[in-house]
């Protein structure tokens, strides 16, 4: 038998375990192993190594499972409470946006009328309109930032 045959057989032995081999390769390997003692021993050693690896048992601590479950439940409660706390803020933000968008044409017309009545230049009512849009956004941003800061504060003091 050639040295290349032994190398091929040993490659197939490993490949069987890692990614599988074709039926033709399997047939060739079986016939080689039946005639080659060293390669047969190599196959046995591979099988034993994998069996040994599979037989390794890990001790686990039941207290760890309970502690983890308690910690996950506590975190789930925190997340839920946080979502509840933030809900009014989100609802207010959405409402503010809707009201602002819906009333924008009337405000624009109103400011334009006022500017015309008092003879003010156009930039005055445009500036007023700009603030009309900006102030709700600033209020909503402040409320959201406050909520997020509160969340960070809560995380810092969360129960481990």
């Amino acid at each position, binding site marked *: 038998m050639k040295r290349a045959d032994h190398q091929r057989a040993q490659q197939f032995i490993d490949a069987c375990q890692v990614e599988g081999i074709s039926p033709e390769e399997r047939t060739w390997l079986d016939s080689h192993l039946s005639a080659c003692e060293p390669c047969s021993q190599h196959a046995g050693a591979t099988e034993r*190594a994998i069996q040994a690896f599979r037989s390794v048992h890990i001790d686990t601590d039941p207290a760890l499972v309970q502690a983890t*479950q308690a910690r996950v439940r506590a975190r789930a409660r925190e997340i839920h409470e946080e979502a509840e706390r933030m809900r009014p803020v989100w609802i207010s933000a959405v409402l503010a946006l809707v009201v602002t968008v819906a009333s924008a044409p009337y405000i624009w017309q109103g400011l334009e009328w006022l500017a015309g009545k008092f003879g003010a230049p156009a930039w005055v009512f445009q500036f007023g309109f700009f603030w009309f849009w900006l102030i709700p956004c600033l209020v909503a941003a402040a409320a959201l930032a406050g909520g997020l800061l509160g969340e960070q504060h809560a995380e810092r003091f969360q129960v481990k």
Partner: protein
Amino acid sequence: MSTAAFFYISVMKQENAEIVQGLRRRNPDLLDQLIERYHYRLMRYLLHLTGNRETAEDVFQETWVRVLERGHQYNGKAKFETWLFSVARHLVIDLFRKKKPASLEVLRGSGEDTGPIEIESTGQPSPFEFAVGREESAHIGLAMGHLNPVYREVLMLRFQEELSLNEITRVVDAPLPTVKTRLYRGLRALRSRVEEAGLESEKS
């Protein structure tokens, strides 16, 4: 496809769909069940990966908290354990990045495996050996403890978890050829370690 296989796949899909829904709702009862069901396998994976019981236990807890927080990212297309191990692995990488940047290369998918790098190389028996059940022969634990963690990880996923090669690539976030290379090298290392351990136990 046989009826049994079809039935198995249907059951698995149904189960995955339930997990997806439960995780999206952050259902604590489902989380309790999952922790109960997967604790042994996750702990075994973390122990293989970190080689240290304390670290493994810390990451174990963090992993489940992360599952709760990021549960919506699990889409149910892959097995739950594949996603779970992937979450755990990222946490281990983050931990090593903070503790010891050099050891991070061991777990990165990008680097080629040029040789064994031990996470803990104190010369003392690896903490992994102490984690192995007392009823197991000590020499097997010794052999496992001295394997490179990057090999131990893929060997564990292949031969204990019995994941497919594609599933392993998802967990370790490495291309298929890298996973195969690690498996072949790991198998060679395992064989020689077990043989050495066997000879030593025969001598003693």
